């Protein structure tokens, strides 16, 4: 195999830097359109008789030109393609800020029960009481873990949750005659979605600089607060992997100024069951079910981003939501009072609710706290083991669930953070998060999660130490030419962006006799 998915040591024996990408085990796979044609199909359907068409003359006249595959061809195409991917099940993903933890298969099994997968969002509410009960139970867990008054389940992903959270803040301020508040404070270390969300809602973004120790200074927040400020968007634990030590004082200052505290909950995995964000003074926080509660990332979604809300924001939670009534549970589908309108059709990511609740019940409250503690233990272990060989920008504090390094240790080697990360691929690991957070030069952000065993962590640390030593020893080609053993070498992203090719086009003159 060209990719060392077993995580076995491969040493530096990548001599003679000729390409080794691709192998007999991982042949190049042609595109669907290069294999299939418009005649083949992998689905047997009867021919339908239509006596009188009701299509009103809008029948298709242009060709679809959609390639089809029979079932064995399709199976092989998608299995072959799949083998070109790294995945959690095949190797560690030390991706900071992404919480790539194990995805239990019980979750998948439960999500496929016909009583969850085969129910329609608009069938009578009397026929989906179990679904509403599940939503209610998930809400209870989320509110209990965060000590908050309400939760809006419907956001489809973390960024969608941010949007909804900030919409509730805007709605609350509009209702209180505070529409003049047009500024949102965002620390420089924030995820890109934070300023994008604030701008989307028409707010002006005012950056808050980070202190030298990677945390936010309550005084800097106080200095930035004014009657125009609507909210602060703060990630805690922050993107440097640090718990904000002054978070309670920051919340107090923000509230004293009549503003709200939006907490980016991307890093909730570090504190679930150990710290309740409601106790810190947050007003709204999204929770990424696909990070903290193990619903699969699926190669880029679907996510789910429920938002917990403080008592002050609870009345603004959007429809639809579940409410207890005399006859059982009811689904409130139309805004009453201050409630916001829909931010998506239907009830949100039910399939993800099932998976997340299954995960919660499996762990229990005790197991979730243990998971958070293990995640923090693992990150500190990596930091402790690698501190001697790497450069630690904020060395004085225990880290939370992430270990952050900068590129000082690479100074003068000619190896960049990007090169270093790509060399990790040749050792069977997915690269860590690179160049984020922006407040650290050449950042390498490592989040092991609680799922990794000590053996795997030791193996990872050995590889990291060995790579650092090699970079310092001047073996730059191992890095600048990496990856050598992946299905592809480095790809030309500039070319892709300069003249975008975003779909397959049938070659103008396809020589029939070719092949």
């Amino acid at each position, binding site marked *: 195999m060209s990719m060392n998915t077993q995580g076995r040591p491969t040493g530096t024996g990548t001599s003679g830097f000729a*390409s080794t990408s691709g192998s007999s085990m991982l042949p190049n796979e042609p595109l*669907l*359109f290069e294999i*299939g044609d418009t*005649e*083949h199909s*992998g689905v047997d359907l009867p021919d339908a008789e*239509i006596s*009188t068409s*009701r299509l*009103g003359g809008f029948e298709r006249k*242009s060709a679809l030109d*959609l390639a089809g*595959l029979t*079932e064995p061809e399709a*199976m092989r195409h*998608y299995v072959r393609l*799949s083998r070109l*991917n790294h995945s959690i099940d*095949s190797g560690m993903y030390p991706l900071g800020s992404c919480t790539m933890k*194990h995805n239990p298969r019980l979750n998948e099994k439960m999500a496929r029960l016909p*009583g969850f997968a085969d*129910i329609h*969002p*608009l069938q009578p509410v009397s026929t989906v009481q179990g679904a509403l009960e*599940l939503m209610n139970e998930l809400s209870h867990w989320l509110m209990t873990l965060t*000590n908050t008054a309400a939760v809006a389940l419907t956001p*489809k992903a973390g*960024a969608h949750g941010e949007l909804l959270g900030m919409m509730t803040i805007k709605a609350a301020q509009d209702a209180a005659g505070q529409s003049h508040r047009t500024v949102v404070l965002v620390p420089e270390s924030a995820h890109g979605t934070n300023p*994008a969300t*604030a701008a*989307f809602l028409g707010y002006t*973004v005012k950056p808050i600089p980070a202190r030298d120790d990677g945390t936010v200074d309550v005084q800097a927040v106080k200095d930035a607060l004014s009657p125009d400020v609507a909210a602060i968007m703060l990630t805690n634990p922050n993107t440097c992997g*640090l718990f904000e030590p002054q978070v309670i004082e920051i919340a107090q200052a923000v509230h004293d100024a009549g503003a709200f505290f939006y907490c980016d909950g991307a890093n909730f995995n570090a504190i679930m069951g150990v*710290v309740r964000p409601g*106790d810190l003074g947050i007003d709204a926080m999204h929770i990424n079910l696909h990070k903290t509660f193990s619903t*699969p990332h*699926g*190669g*880029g*979604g*679907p*996510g789910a981003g429920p938002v917990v809300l403080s008592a002050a924001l609870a009345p603004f939670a959007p429809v639809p939501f579940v409410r207890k009534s005399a006859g059982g549970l009811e689904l409130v589908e139309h805004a009453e009072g201050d409630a916001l309108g829909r931010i998506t059709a*239907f009830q*949100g*990511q*039910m399939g993800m609710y099932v998976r997340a609740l299954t995960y919660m019940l499996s*762990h*229990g409250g005790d197991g979730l706290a243990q*998971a958070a503690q293990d995640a923090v*233990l*693992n990150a*500190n272990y990596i930091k402790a083991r690698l501190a001697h060989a790497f450069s630690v920008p904020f060395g004085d504090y*225990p880290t939370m669930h992430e270990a952050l390094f900068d590129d000082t240790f690479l100074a003068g080697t000619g190896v960049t953070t990007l090169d270093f990360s790509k060399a990790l691929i040749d050792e069977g690991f997915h690269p860590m998060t690179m160049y984020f957070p922006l407040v650290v030069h050449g950042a390498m952000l490592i989040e092991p999660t609680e799922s990794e065993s000590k053996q795997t962590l030791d193996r990872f640390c050995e590889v990291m130490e060995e790579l650092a030593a090699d970079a310092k020893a001047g073996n730059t080609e191992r890095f600048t030419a990496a990856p050598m053993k992946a*299905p592809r*070498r480095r*790809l030309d992203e500039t070319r*892709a962006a300069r003249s*975008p090719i*975003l779909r397959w086009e049938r070659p103008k003159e396809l020589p029939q006799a070719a092949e």
Partner: protein
Amino acid sequence: MRYLPHSDAERAEMLGVIGATSIEALFSAVPAKALKTFDLNLPKHSPEYLVEAHMKALAGKNRAGSDGPFFVGAGAYRHHVPATVDHLIQRSEWLTAYTPYQPEISQGTLQMLFEFQTQVAKITGMDVANASLYDGSTGTAEAVLMARRLTRRNKIVLSGGLHPHYRDVVRSYLKDDADLECLSASPEGQGDILDHIDETTAAIVIQTPDFYGHLRNLKTAADAAHAKGALLIVVVTEIVSLGLLESPGAYGADIVVAEGQSIGNALNFGGPYLGLMATRKEFIRQMPGRLCGETVDADGQRGFVLTLSTREQHIRREKATSNICTNSGLCALAFSIHMGLLGEAGFTKLARLNHARACALADALTGIPGVELLNKTFFNEMTIRVAVPAAPLVEALAARGILGGVPVSRLEPENPNVANLLVLAATELTTDEDIAALVAALTEELA
């Protein structure tokens, strides 16, 4: 706990390497008054079989689509998904992969997205498609914002045939601003949207088949919009319809948004679903969401990468086209596999079959005294007017074991004109026996 690899001895050993006395010491930055000062009052960890029993009990309180005759549509459709699709999407390398930001070890996901984008572009008749959005409703809101950026105009007109949930989502995204015009419900298929286009109009939004099942004339809409410099946004909630109907692109649509759930994805009580978005080549730099493009690697081999990310939040921060940070990857994979299995031959057959089943349903319904079919045109969904309020009628049908469609009043409670309207869908799964059971039940209920 079965998901946590460490033994207590290993934890102690690791703490020793760290030089910490206890786990608590690692949480020293947390203010004392917030650290574990509470009793969680949640159940303890549980074995797999007990969790399974609990979840099955909840699932058992729901009526599944397979439990009896089923005619519910209105934006989500019950179709057959081949076993191959669900098997493949559960492979580790698809299910547990991250967003393909490291293209060298993500070529599976990336090539699949490139194939998916090609399929969506072909089906919609547009130049390019993105790698998917959350769902059709949020995609519609994103399309409206995109049209404003492209035209630098503000007025948006939503057709009265647009799915009411989609309309509500657009209203939420636009905070009901003064430039948003929502036309009143048009259950008869009447369309006066063309009279609302003027020189300030950024876009008109037309759904076809519309919420009530009618097929809308996109050609006249495109011509009228373009004559005033406005864009035509076409919404399709039943993507199977495009196996039989001319593509929006062929009629001149500028942006097409669709719900892709029907292909490859289960009903799931509303999510996760799959937002499709396609547009003209010249508009791509204003399109939200991820895009996958073809390139070469250092050895000159064909490969794929996420591209044009200068539109996106992680690069542009507050200047991004959207705050979107994810797509609906696994749902897009399911769509692409199912569409790859169908191919042109299968997709066309599937669409014909759906239309045939709907024709059979329509013919059966028109024979019931007290039922009036409002549609002259439809694909696989239609609206009937009955002599009684539709909401209690649907409950009565449910009590008889039949999920008999969606009362329009559930989505439009403020509008008295729709109280007696019922939207019903048929798909390839609708049998003659299902239709006979519905007809018998309706006949008795309406007698």
